[in-house]
C-alpha cells in the first residue's frame, strides 16, 4: 500500500492476474456518467461497485444547469414524475453582449412545460443521488467516501481493478469504468489523457443567487414551474468563453466559462468578470437583490471531438468528463446529457464484453461504435470545429460588437435620412468592429459547415 496517501498516485499498481474477481465491473465516480453506467451494468445482471469520493453522490458538485429529457427516456422511463426538477425550461435565449448593449434571440414554448418535457434545471446535489439510487436499486453497490488512487494492472497492461485510499482497499474486477471527471487520474495513469489539457479546458464559475419564486416568475416572464435558460457570448472581456443564467425554483444560477490560457494571460480574476456581468444593464435587472448563497468553480473539458482521449484500453473504459464528453457549441452547452449518454453506452458495452468473456480493448470496442451511432459521438464529430469557432478571437471579441452595431442601426430611426439597406448596415458594422467581409463570409461558411 505504498501509494496510499493524500492524493492519487501517478502510476498504476502492477498485480498478477487475479484468480477471482470481487466484482464484474467497477465504476469510479457516481456522477451522471458513473451512475448511468452502473445502472446499465446492474440491469444486465452484473455485479458492480460504484465508488464515490464524496460522502454521497452529488456532494462535490458544482452545477447549475439543464438536463435534457430525451436521453433520460432511454435510461429511466417515467423520469418526469420522479426526477428532482427545479423548473422545466420553457424559454431559451442566446444573448450577445457588447458594452452596455445586448442582442437576444428568445424562444419560448409552453409545450416544453408539459410532458414530454424538453429540459429541466436541476441541482446536481439532488440529481446525482436520485440517479445513484436507481443504480443501487438495480443492484449496484455504492461505496461513498472512498477515493480511488490507482489502477491495478497486470504485466501486459490490462486493467483488473483499482486501489482505494481505504485499508485493504484493492478491489478487482474484469472491467473498470473511469467516470472520475475532467481531471481523470485514472485516464492519466492509463496513458490515455495526455497533451496540453489546459488549452482545451475552461474554468466554470457560478453563483447561486436566492430570489423569491414570485420575483423570478415576474422578471423572467414565466409562471408555475416554467423556467429560462440563457446562454451568453461577449460577456467575458478579453478571455475566451461564455456565460449562462438559469432559473431554479427559488434561485438563479449565473456563471461564466473561461478559457484557462486566456484567463491566465488576461490576469483577471473570474469573480471580477462575474461581478461585471451581473452589473451589465441587461443582466442587472434580472439578478438585482439576489442573495448570494453559493459561489463555486470547476474545470470543464471543452475541447470537443478533436481533443478527446482514446476511450478504451484493455479492461478500461472512459465516460463523461473523463472522456471529454462536454459539448460547447455556442447555442448548445451540454455536459450532463453527454455524460449520461456515454455512461449508458459504456455500461452496455461493458456488459456485452463481460457476457462474451472478452474485456480487452477489442472486446470493449462496441463502446465506440455505440457512441458513434448515438448522439454522443455523432454530435461531437459533426460539431468538431465548433469549440474552435466559438472560442476564436473574432467570435469572442469582434462579432458581439458587430451584431450589436448591426441591430442598433436596424432598430434606430434617424429620419429624415433615408434608410440604408441591410447590406450597407452590415458592411458598416463590420468595418467599425475591424471585421473584413471576407473573414465574415469565411466564418459564416465554417459555421454553416459546422452547424449545417
Amino acid at each position: 500500500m505504498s501509494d496510499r496517501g493524500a492524493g492519487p498516485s501517478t502510476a498504476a499498481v502492477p498485480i498478477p492476474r487475479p484468480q477471482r474477481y470481487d466484482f464484474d465491473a467497477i465504476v469510479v465516480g457516481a456522477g451522471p456518467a458513473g451512475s448511468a453506467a452502473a445502472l446499465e451494468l446492474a440491469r444486465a445482471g452484473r455485479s458492480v461497485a460504484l465508488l464515490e469520493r464524496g460522502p454521497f453522490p452529488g456532494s462535490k458538485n458544482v452545477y447549475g444547469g439543464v438536463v435534457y429529457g430525451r436521453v433520460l427516456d432511454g435510461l429511466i422511463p417515467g423520469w418526469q414524475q420522479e426526477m428532482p426538477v427545479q423548473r422545466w425550461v420553457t424559454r431559451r435565449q442566446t444573448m450577445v453582449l457588447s458594452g452596455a448593449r445586448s442582442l437576444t434571440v428568445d424562444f419560448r414554448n409552453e409545450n416544453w412545460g408539459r410532458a414530454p418535457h424538453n429540459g429541466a434545471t436541476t441541482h446536481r446535489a439532488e440529481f446525482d443521488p436520485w440517479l445513484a439510487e436507481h443504480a443501487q436499486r438495480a443492484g449496484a453497490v455504492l461505496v461513498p467516501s472512498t477515493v480511488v488512487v490507482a489502477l491495478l494492472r497486470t504485466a501486459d497492461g490490462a486493467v483488473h481493478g483499482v486501489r482505494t485510499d481505504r485499508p485493504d482497499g484493492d478491489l478487482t474486477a474484469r472491467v473498470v469504468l473511469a467516470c472520475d471527471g475532467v481531471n481523470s487520474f485514472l485516464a492519466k495513469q492509463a496513458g490515455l489523457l495526455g497533451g496540453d489539457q489546459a488549452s482545451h479546458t475552461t474554468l466554470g464559475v457560478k453563483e447561486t443567487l436566492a430570489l423569491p419564486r414570485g420575483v423570478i416568475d415576474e422578471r423572467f416572464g414565466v409562471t408555475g414551474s416554467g423556467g429560462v435558460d440563457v446562454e451568453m457570448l461577449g460577456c467575458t472581456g478579453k478571455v475566451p468563453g461564455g456565460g449562462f443564467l438559469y432559473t431554479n425554483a427559488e434561485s438563479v444560477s449565473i456563471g461564466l466559462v473561461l478559457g484557462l490560457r486566456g484567463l491566465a494571460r488576461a490576469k483577471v480574476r473570474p469573480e471580477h468578470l462575474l461581478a461585471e456581468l451581473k452589473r451589465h444593464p441587461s443582466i442587472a435587472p434580472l439578478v438585482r437583490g439576489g442573495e448570494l448563497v453559493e459561489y463555486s468553480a470547476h474545470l470543464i473539458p471543452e475541447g470537443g471531438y478533436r481533443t478527446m482521449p482514446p476511450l478504451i484500453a484493455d479492461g478500461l473504459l472512459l465516460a463523461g468528463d473523463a472522456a471529454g464528453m462536454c459539448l460547447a457549441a455556442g447555442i448548445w452547452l451540454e455536459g450532463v446529457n453527454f455524460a449520461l449518454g456515454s455512461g449508458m453506452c459504456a455500461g452496455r458495452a461493458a456488459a456485452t464484453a463481460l457476457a462474451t468473456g472478452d474485456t480487452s480493448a477489442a472486446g470493449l470496442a462496441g463502446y465506440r461504435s455505440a457512441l458513434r451511432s448515438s448522439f454522443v459521438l455523432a454530435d461531437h464529430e459533426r460539431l468538431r470545429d465548433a469549440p474552435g469557432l466559438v472560442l476564436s478571437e473574432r467570435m469572442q471579441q469582434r462579432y458581439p460588437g458587430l451584431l450589436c452595431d448591426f441591430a442598433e442601426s436596424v432598430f434606430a430611426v434617424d429620419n429624415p435620412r433615408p434608410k440604408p439597406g441591410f447590406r450597407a448596415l452590415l458592411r458598416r458594422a463590420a468595418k467599425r468592429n475591424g471585421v473584413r467581409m471576407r473573414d465574415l463570409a469565411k466564418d459564416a461558411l465554417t459555421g454553416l459547415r459546422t452547424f449545417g
Partner: protein
Amino acid sequence: MFVVVALRWVDERAEVDPLSGRVRTSDRSAGASAADAAALELGLRLAGSTGGRCAAVSLAPAGADELLRGALASGTDEVLRVEPAGEPDPRAADSGAGTAVALAAAVRERFGAPDLVLTGDHSPDRGTGATPALLAAEFGCAQALGLVSLDTEPAADGRLRALRRLDRGRRERLAVPLPAVCSVEAAGVRPRTAALPAVLAARSAEVPVVAARAAPDPPPLTAAHGYRPRAKELPAPAGADPLRRLRELTGAGQRSDPPRVVVTDDPAEAADELLAFLRAEGYLDG
C-alpha cells in the same frame, strides 16, 4: 470492557427557512458529528486494548441505518437503532431527557449494563450537552463530561485517566471510575478509515431495531415564541418639541464622519492611508 457509543444522527448541513424557522434536513447529508466520531474511535480503541466489546447505538429513524453500518465497518461488534416513539414537538426544547431514557432502556435490555458509555460532548442540532449527564443518571454511574482526551488503556486501579478543558486555558485531570458515562470533544482524535472489505460487508448488514420506551411526559407547553430581548432603557431625549427630541434620539441631521473603505492595489498608497488614519486618531502622537 464493554463500551457503548451513543451516536446522534444529525444533519450538520441543515437549512433553516428564514421566514418560518422550519429546519430542513436530509438523510443524505446526515451522519455523526465530529465529536461523536471521536467518541466512536475512542470506544473502539478502548474495547480493542482491553479485549472487550464495543457497540454503537442511536436513537434515530431508519435513515440512521447507514450511520450504524459505518460504525460496523469501522469495527464495532454490534449496533442497535432505537426507533423514536413519535414525532417530537418542534416547539419544545429538547432537554435530552427522553433520549437518555430511551437509550438507557434499550441498551440495558439488549446488551446489559455497559462498563463505559461514550458520546460526543454535545449535539450540533440542539447543543444542550445534557444527554450524557442524563444518561449517567439513568445508568446510575459516574460521569466525566467534555473531555479532550481519554487514555485508551485503563490505569492499574482500573480507572480511566481523562483530561477536561476548563476556562482560561486550564485543564483538569480526572481519574474516572467505571462504570461511567464520558462525553468527549472532537479534539486530538482522528477517526479511523474503515477497511474496504468491512465497508462492503457492512453494506448488507442487518441493523437491529427496537422501539424506544416512551419518554416521561414533558411539562405542558402552553405557548412558544421567539426570544425577545428586554427593551433597553435610555434617558429621555432633551428637546422642547417632538421633532427635536426625535432628532436627538435618532441622531438624524447631525454631522458625522461615515466610515470609509479604501481600496487600493498600491502598497505605498495603502501605507500612507493607514498612517494618516493612525495620526488622525492620535495613535502616533508623541
